């Protein structure tokens, strides 16, 4: 953790922006804010006893050390490129952008300006996920042949009717939202393999004014004012070197919620099951999950299976991500993880699924 206290400007003072600010102040850093909405500015100002701006340009010129950008996806590009142009390092909420073209322009700005540009794929900072990656790199699993990747919420359409469910503003639905996390993890586990072929189906079953019974709304609800995106995607992918993957992404589905990766290697396998924050509220159960299981077959006097449960200490992935970012800002060195290069690869993969995706 950085010893130096830094001043961080948060652009977009919604749930994510406020969460970042909460962690940053907890770490001893100072936060400032910018938002288009006067109410959000007032609340942020009061909560963190700080200054806010209605224009990010003014925030960027105020002498801050770095910027955290959590605007709607469509406004990542203008905000992030402006920040980097004036010499600021940035952490962007995921996905990198609402479209591949916009993501490429952000990537280009990061390369040209030489500023740090990290993207908020926070699940990667979970101890269980990092441990799996280390086992993969050590060769414990042999060669990874297949990954079953699921990010399914039973009822978790975020902010129905807000920008999250607008094609124009978000760039897509479940796939670009939680599917971006899934694709990031999948590519990370695969060693950033190139996708060869994709067969994908996208559905919108919980549309604008359809019946949407739920236990607790995920995020704010705007009575489904805008809703022109898919709420689930199922896909089968083949990668270079012969790896395959099944992908299931859903904001809402009549099945158990699951954010899990089942890896099959030539030598061993693993199941990693990630608990989502607030899942208890959505699911109505408080079962604790954030677990890793390993599957082996061994030869001895009798051939046998060895299934092991791995216990890792819980960690806060958001805090780990922000620590990585602040450390990078202080050191002035680009972090090796969840950087703009990786985020652009994720965006390409998500874009590919959208392009190949057909309605059922």
């Amino acid at each position, binding site marked *: 953790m950085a010893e130096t206290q830094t001043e961080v400007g948060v652009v977009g003072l919604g749930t994510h922006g406020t969460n970042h600010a909460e962690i940053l102040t907890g770490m001893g850093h100072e936060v400032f804010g910018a938002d*288009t909405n006067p109410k959000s500015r007032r609340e942020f100002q009061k909560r963190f006893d700080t200054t806010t701006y209605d224009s990010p340009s003014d925030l960027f010129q105020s002498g801050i050390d770095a910027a955290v950008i959590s605007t*709607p996806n469509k*406004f990542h590009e203008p*905000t992030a490129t402006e920040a980097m142009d004036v010499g600021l390092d940035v952490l962007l909420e995921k996905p990198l952008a609402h479209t591949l073209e916009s993501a490429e322009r952000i990537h280009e700005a990061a390369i040209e300006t030489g500023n740090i540009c990290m993207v908020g794929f926070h699940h990667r900072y979970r101890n269980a996920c990092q441990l799996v990656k280390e086992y993969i790199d050590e060769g414990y699993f042999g060669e990874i042949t297949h990954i079953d990747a699921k990010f399914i919420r039973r009822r978790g359409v975020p902010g129905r*009717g807000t920008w999250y469910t*607008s*094609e124009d503003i978000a760039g897509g639905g479940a796939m670009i939202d939680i599917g971006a996390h899934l694709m990031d993890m999948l590519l990370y586990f695969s060693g950033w393999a190139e996708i060869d072929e994709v067969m994908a189906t996208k559905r919108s079953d919980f549309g604008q004014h359809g019946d949407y019974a739920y236990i607790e709304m995920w995020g704010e609800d705007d009575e489904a*004012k805008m*809703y022109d995106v898919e709420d689930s995607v199922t896909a089968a992918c083949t990668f270079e070197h012969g790896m395959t993957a099944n992908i299931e992404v859903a904001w809402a589905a009549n099945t158990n919620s699951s954010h899990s990766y089942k890896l099959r290697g030539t030598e061993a396998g693993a199941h990693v099951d990630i608990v989502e924050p607030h899942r208890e509220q959505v699911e109505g159960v408080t079962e604790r999950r954030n677990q890793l299981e390993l599957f082996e077959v061994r030869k001895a006097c009798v051939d046998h299976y060895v299934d092991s449960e791995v216990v890792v200490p819980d960690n806060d992935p958001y805090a780990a991500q922000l620590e990585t970012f602040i450390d990078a800002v202080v050191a002035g060195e680009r972090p090796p993880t969840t950087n703009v290069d990786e985020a652009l690869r994720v965006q390409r993969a998500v874009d590919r699924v959208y392009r190949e995706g057909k309605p059922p």
Partner: protein
Amino acid sequence: MAQDGSASTGKTIRSVETAMSVLEAIQRHEPVGVTTITEETDRSKSTVHHHVSTLCEAGYLERVGDQYQLSLTFLTLGGQVRERKQLYHLAKDDVDALAERTGEQSRLIVEEDGLGVTLYRATGEHGAATDTHVGSTQDLYCTAAGKAFLAELPAETVDAYIEDQAFVPYTEHTIDDPETLRKELDAIGSRGVAFDDQEYFEGVRCVASAIGSQSGELLGAISVSAPVERMDEERFRSEIPDQLQNVAGVVEINSAYSEWTDAFSG
């Protein structure tokens, strides 16, 4: 409601008033001769004659034989007024897209002086159901966009508006009493979609959604209209409202962030 910007001193210039009523009479009847203008404006024939000559001289009117019509100078002025409206620039492409997606006529409407003014319109493959050209005005109580505006206004403002209305029965379906109108404004309520079921033009249905700023200021409305034959109950009450709301929501968000994007590019 938008203020008309007139001086509050109570002093007005009679000859300017005459000029305006001459222009308005010509707008209603063009091309039109001096006799008709005289009847419409309640001024003497010689006064009207002096006015039309002066307006011709200044380039605001054109003479066609014995009659007069408005000149393109008004388009020059009107075009400039529209260019100045930020909403026009923010919503134009979305109105085009909506017209293409629905195949019908889509319009961008703003409120001024208790009337809905068409700021922009785009027409889909089926053509236009009505002749509501850019700049044309319609009453609020009998149009979808108008009702969408009224539903956003505070009760006192709506009361004042209703007080002033003559409730002209444009068709047999036109709302003709304040109570029915109030009930309908309540119904528009949280969903934010307003309907005109053949209330202004016989045989034409229209759906509209208001566009507001983050601080609650009313910016305008977007509408889609089509003849009843192409607008059955399902399309009128569900399909078009859904498409319209997707667009209206996007325009609202783009407008909220427009200052940021403008500041960056400038």
